[in-house]
């Protein structure tokens, strides 16, 4: 890829153009109005165009400026951490805070390069106990604690 000499700027520009373009296209459905009586589409369209312009500058510049390649040392953390959070969201409404906490801690721990399975399970149980005491009873937050079958 000798053409793109500044990959970070190039992709940032592409991202800006994508977001700005999408905003413009979606905002076409909203009334534009006039400067004196702005419709709901006015400000989004101006911003969308501005963002596209900035993105275009970045893309054009990336052919002349030189920059380091984008570094992806490992994809493990991003996948595991995000998966554990999504799992938490899926579990907490159905099975309650305790099980969701254990799932989140046990799964997210795997993202570390010094992962220790037994230690992480202990940490999960300890944190679950802490969460129940601190958030459910200490701060009295109204969150589902146990699976509803056990009487919430």
């Amino acid at each position, binding site marked *: 890829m000798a053409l793109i000499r500044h990959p970070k700027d190039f992709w940032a520009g592409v991202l800006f153009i994508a977001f700005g373009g999408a905003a413009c296209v979606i905002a076409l459905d*909203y009334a534009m109005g006039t400067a*004196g009586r702005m419709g*709901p589409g006015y400000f989004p369209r101006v911003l969308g165009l501005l*963002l596209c312009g900035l993105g275009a500058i970045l893309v054009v510049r990336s052919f002349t400026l030189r920059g380091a390649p984008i570094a992806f*040392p490992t994809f493990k953390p991003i996948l595991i951490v995000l998966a*554990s*959070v999504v799992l938490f*969201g899926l579990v907490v409404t159905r099975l309650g805070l305790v099980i969701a906490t254990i799932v989140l801690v046990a799964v997210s721990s795997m993202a570390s390069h010094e992962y*220790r399975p037994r230690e992480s399970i202990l940490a999960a149980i300890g944190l679950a106990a802490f969460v129940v005491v601190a958030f459910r009873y200490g701060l009295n937050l109204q969150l589902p604690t146990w699976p509803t079958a056990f009487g919430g």
Partner: protein
Amino acid sequence: MEVFTNLATGFAVALTATNLLYAFVGVLLGTLIGVLPGIGPVPTIAMLLPITYALPPVSALIMLAGIYYGAQYGGSTTAILVNLPGESSSVVTCIDGYQMARRGRAGTALAIAAIGSFIAGTFATMVVAAFAPPLAEVALKFGPAEYFSLMVLGLIAAVVLASGSLVKAIGMIVLGLLLGLVGTDVNSGLQRFTFGVPELSDGIGFVAIAMGVFGFAEIIVNLEHREASEVFTNKVSGLWLKWKEFRQALPAIARGTLLGSSLGILPGGGALLSAFAAYTLEKKVAKDPSQFGKGAIQGVAGPESANNAGAQTSFIPLLTLGIPPNAVMALMVGAMTIHSIQPGPQVMTSNPQLFWGLIASMWIGNLMLVVLNLPMIGIWVKLLQVPYRLLYPAILLFCCIGVYSLQNNVWDVFVTALFGLIGWIFVKLECEPAPLLLGFILGPLMEENLRRALLLSRGDPSVFVTRPLSATLLGVAALLLLIVAAPQIRRKREEAFHEA
């Protein structure tokens, strides 16, 4: 002097047992999360927002404010001892603070950071007390044109603070402004960018964006790097300074305090911008700039004073204009609206107990921090020995529970995960997230004031330059932009030259 009678009212409020307790809880929590890398004041305040329902409004705000400036104290401890910024505003403290620790002067660095912060905090409290009332009066004269121009200035100031490329920083602001428009348009009632999702009709949750982009993305990036930092735990001895060292640091403290106090007032300013600016200033005025990066005491004293001063004076735009200048202040708006207090210039007259009580509590909180932290550093150091592999799942957990409990809706948890991904991409592309967040906060306010200003002028855009206050604000913004742009042009030329 009216200021003193007002402050007396404030101290009467702040010195009640309840409020002292909440100030104490706030600064203690703030120090704790400040020491821990990877969790900042934004998620902490967001997590505690639901429980402030039950508190009286003054106590709630006193506690939340304590978390913010307490975090500035705690952040420096981690920066000095582990070379990790416990708080984003301590990034620059790492440079010379850690070097001082490596040279066996950890105690000196910690002491000067605490003393500098205290001096700065005291001065900034006076600034807030002295300048908030006259500014609030000016603010009452502000029309929509002035508000719009002020926000433009704030956003430009945020560009100045972004360390990387100017174009990218402006792009992030615009992207933030666009994200801020998601939801129901107040003027027409139209649902914009909601894709038919009912949860989006109130807009994207601010806390979800902040936690995703700052909290999650940071954890993920930390996990990608393997190297463990050395902790200088055994070398913390002699927490006091020699007179000579104090004399060396004092001018830096004074400069940092002044700089931080003035930059904090700007929308877009606050602790982070102040710390960066102070470090640059110290390096410029130093007789021997080569000492910086090798453990210069001024490199710790200046930024640490500045970030504390900036943290405190950033309450001014919130309390006088009703504009949140940064993410933490946006959460304070949330806390105030929970108690049906509309932030803005009228708070001071309609709610003087709250206004002055909060200001007085800032000074008391700063005093508590010095008294607490110098002897308690040993405990914080112990905390730092908890390995990251145990720490980050706990941080993730507290973020998730905090986001979930805001509205008892898992939707926000999923949005946070999505913004974690987006934030991670931004890190990879070297796009700074801070301007995005500021744009997001100011987006709806800006559109509203732009609309009103142009409605009043019947579509004539010259109102922004014909009204003197508005023109001045825009002029300052243009000047700032020119200043940052200039060296960039030069650098670009150099690069082109280099390649040719």
